[in-house]
């Protein structure tokens, strides 16, 4: 079987699973139910608000990410640059409750900012509960992700191009307009759509920092329908509505994105010349520090709290170590599986470009994990499989599989452009030399794709390690990962111990990410995404 066909079949199976899952939920729905939903004013407001906050969140995250990524791309010798890029994986692993505590510790009514204002004798206190809080949290979560999604764009520019810009004496502004802007038109729509969908499904953060029921997203309504009212028809209909809304947006993103081909270079590792002046360096430095400071402050607050918390952890060391082991044994295979599944899908996406049906199918499958409601997926699995499979006995395998599917979009998102670029560059050469199949993967694809594969594996592992949805669905008592442990500790009033656990989770995530990027991605920076 050829790789694109394998990819297409994988994609078809994933898409079919999501559709079947929704069908199970909707099987009891009547046309009248759906009509009621369509005319419900409460629901309309919820949909409106969900769109508003997701649009604003994604736009701000990308707007902040573009100059930051540009600065990072330009200053390849920036001190601590690799570390900054690895830190970008951290918000992905973070449980919502930990992120809320971190953000509030900095920007809350008694946070550091408020204290600072008090030191200067001011009565002013920040008030973040409302749209502000939601946006702060979503930018905190997604700015680092956006940077990692956009940074590869710059590495597609051959070194010769940068030399040419210097020879032609192009200014920074001209470079931006003539080279970087077209480049961004290729990458930004996909990243924007990706982050929009993530924010669209956001739930705990939106309710808690949103200040009240005005801040209700569609996922809250789905949660209420499936969990409290156990109204499957309504929950299913809302989930379909949510998925369709995300799909429409993703489709718009695809249509507006432009393909851009710089042609083949000799992979010269040439620094660009417009970032060398003192003024440019200062500007880039300030941009990076501001953006990273915004993300780092809540993280630092968590680390600070966590260090104090670890002191309380001593008595609970075994449960902590146990959770570390569970987090690793579930997170790493899930990340690996997601990456292995994503590769043929990414290849298929490029090879089958001419066929519309295939493109749509692959697009849906590639994003299924973030456009499908986790609540609805969980309910559908329970409904379809109870009595057929002992879900609690297969819990570990189930959690790994479900996390692989939920994080698949991250892997596809990273691999797709890299694979496409490689194909554009080497297809003719390989055809001429008769290199195909396994040889081609070993000689051509693997050396070139290693950084992308490493990044995909790292991101999916990080996201899987922060899982709560899958582990809560399978409910096996012996499976407690760090995220679940953290929630259990909070439920038992152990806030201090919980902050220690959050710190361990962050450290483990960073460590895994660094090791994976090194081991899989290789050390070479010249080829790379970083």
């Amino acid at each position, binding site marked *: 079987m050829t790789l694109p066909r394998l990819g297409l079949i994988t994609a078809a199976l994933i898409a079919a699973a999501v559709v079947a899952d929704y069908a199970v939920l909707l099987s009891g729905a009547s046309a009248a139910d759906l009509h009621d939903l369509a005319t419900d004013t*409460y629901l309309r407001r919820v949909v409106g608000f969900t769109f508003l906050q997701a649009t604003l969140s994604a736009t701000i995250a990308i707007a902040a990410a573009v100059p930051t990524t540009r600065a990072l791309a330009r200053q390849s010798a920036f001190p601590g640059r690799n570390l900054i890029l690895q830190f970008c994986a951290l918000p992905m692993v973070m449980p919502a409750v930990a992120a809320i*505590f971190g953000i509030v510790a900095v920007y809350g009514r008694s946070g550091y900012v408020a204290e600072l204002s008090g030191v200067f004798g001011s009565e002013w206190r920040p008030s973040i509960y409302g749209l502000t809080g939601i946006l702060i949290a979503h930018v905190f979560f997604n700015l680092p992700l956006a940077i990692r999604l956009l940074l590869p764009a710059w590495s597609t520019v051959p070194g010769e191009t940068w030399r040419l810009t210097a020879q032609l004496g192009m200014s920074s502004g001209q470079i931006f307009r003539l080279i970087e802007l077209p480049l961004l038109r290729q990458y930004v729509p996909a990243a924007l759509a990706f982050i929009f969908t993530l924010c669209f499904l956001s739930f705990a953060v939106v*309710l808690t920092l949103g200040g009240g029921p005005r801040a209700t997203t569609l996922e809250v309504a789905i949660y*209420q329908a499936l969990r409290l009212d*156990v109204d499957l028809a309504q929950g299913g209909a809302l989930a379909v509505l949510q998925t369709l809304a995300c799909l429409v947006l993703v489709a718009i993103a695809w249509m507006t994105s432009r393909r851009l081909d710089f042609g083949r270079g000799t992979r010269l590792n040439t620094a660009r010349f417009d970032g060398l002046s003192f003024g440019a360096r200062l500007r880039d430095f300030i941009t990076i520090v501001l953006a990273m400071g915004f993300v780092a402050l809540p993280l630092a607050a968590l680390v600070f709290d966590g260090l104090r918390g670890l002191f309380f952890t001593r008595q609970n060391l075994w449960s902590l170590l146990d959770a570390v082991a569970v987090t690793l044994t579930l997170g790493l295979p899930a990340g690996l599986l997601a990456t292995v599944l994503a590769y043929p899908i990414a290849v298929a996406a490029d090879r089958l470009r001419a066929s519309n049906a295939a493109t749509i199918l692959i697009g849906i499958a590639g994003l299924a994990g973030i456009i499908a409601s986790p609540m609805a997926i969980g309910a559908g699995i329970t409904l379809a499989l109870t*009595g057929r499979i002992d879900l609690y006995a297969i819990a570990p395998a189930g959690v790994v599989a479900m996390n692989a599917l939920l994080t698949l979009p991250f892997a596809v998102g990273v691999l797709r452009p890299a694979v496409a670029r490689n194909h554009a560059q080497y297809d003719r050469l390989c055809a001429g030399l008769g290199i195909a199949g396994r040889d081609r993967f070993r000689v051509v694809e693997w050396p070139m794709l290693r950084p992308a594969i490493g990044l995909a594996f790292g991101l999916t592992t990080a996201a899987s390690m922060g899982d709560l949805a899958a582990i*809560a669905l399978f409910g096996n008592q012996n499976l407690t990962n760090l995220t679940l442990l953290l929630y259990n500790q909070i439920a*038992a009033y152990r806030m201090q111990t919980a902050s220690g656990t959050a710190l361990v989770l962050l450290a483990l995530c960073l460590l895994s990410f660094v090791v994976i990027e090194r081991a899989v991605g290789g050390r070479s920076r010249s080829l790379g995404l970083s």
Partner: protein
Amino acid sequence: MRFATRLVLAAGLIALAGAAPAADAPKLTVYTYSSFVAEWGPGPKVTPVFEQQCGCKVEWVAFGDGAGLLSKLKLEGDKSPADVVLGLDTSLTAEAAATGLIAPHGVDTGAVKLPIAWDDKNFVPFDYGYFAFMWDSEKLKTPPKSLADLAAGGDEPKILLEDPRTSTPGLGLMLWLKSVYGEKAADTWKGIAPKILTVSKSWDEAYGLFTKGEAPLVLSYTTSQAYHVMEEKTERYKALVFPEGNYMQVEVAGMLKTSQHPDLARQFLQFLVSKDFQMVIPTTNWMLPVTDGATPPEFAMAAPQPKKALLLPADEVAQHRAAWIKEWLQAVGQ
């Protein structure tokens, strides 16, 4: 990629270990919420006691919270592998019973001493608590004296609440106001609305923000005070007892009609109201035991006794919940 292969193998082995059949002893599957069987919860303490009594193995399966349990039951229907479900509360029992999945327990609940009479044939109560506002005495000098006081005047002091659509304490407060004010509950909500700092998804976020000093009042339980006094040795956080009364939450367990081990299930339910189980409840679940003589004196001292216990009939809650949530949404400003 050798290490990756090894990881896959490790995961496979874990999966196999999970699937391996338990010992020959019969297995009782109990659904509960996750904090019940967490390290500090009652689960680890009571399991060995019961396993010794019954010569069986207790298999806990834990999901989220009480509402999560109900939805799990409804989704699984008569194919559920569960024998017992533990952790529903009185705002959900009528709906759980209406599924027709719960068998009458037939347990002698004579030892149960609740502030209200217990005559539910389907569910056995295993602990209870009173919802209360916790007050941070370092952040606020004078706490509100009553519900009416809480709903009166201005937008201070700030309050942290939970959402009734996603959290059982949130639902509890909604029922609390309904039981005190009836038709006029919405007016009281309108009075409280300007003081609400935020309405969080679950108790976890609200209580976390409270201990971080974001607001001086949070909706929790009277027994929260006992935790701070006994475990943290601090008097800073106090539970407020209101003259209108405090709303109760009774946590219950029931057995499923489809259980393969009905006798074991019944034995387990009987065990819940025994001294062995009840003694463990106060300092592990931080709730009140349902039988006399199980509360440590220190605990009784540290959790204030409400002036009046409020609880709406379960069927009334089931009947009106959806409408009341809509009313709540409108009153607090959807």
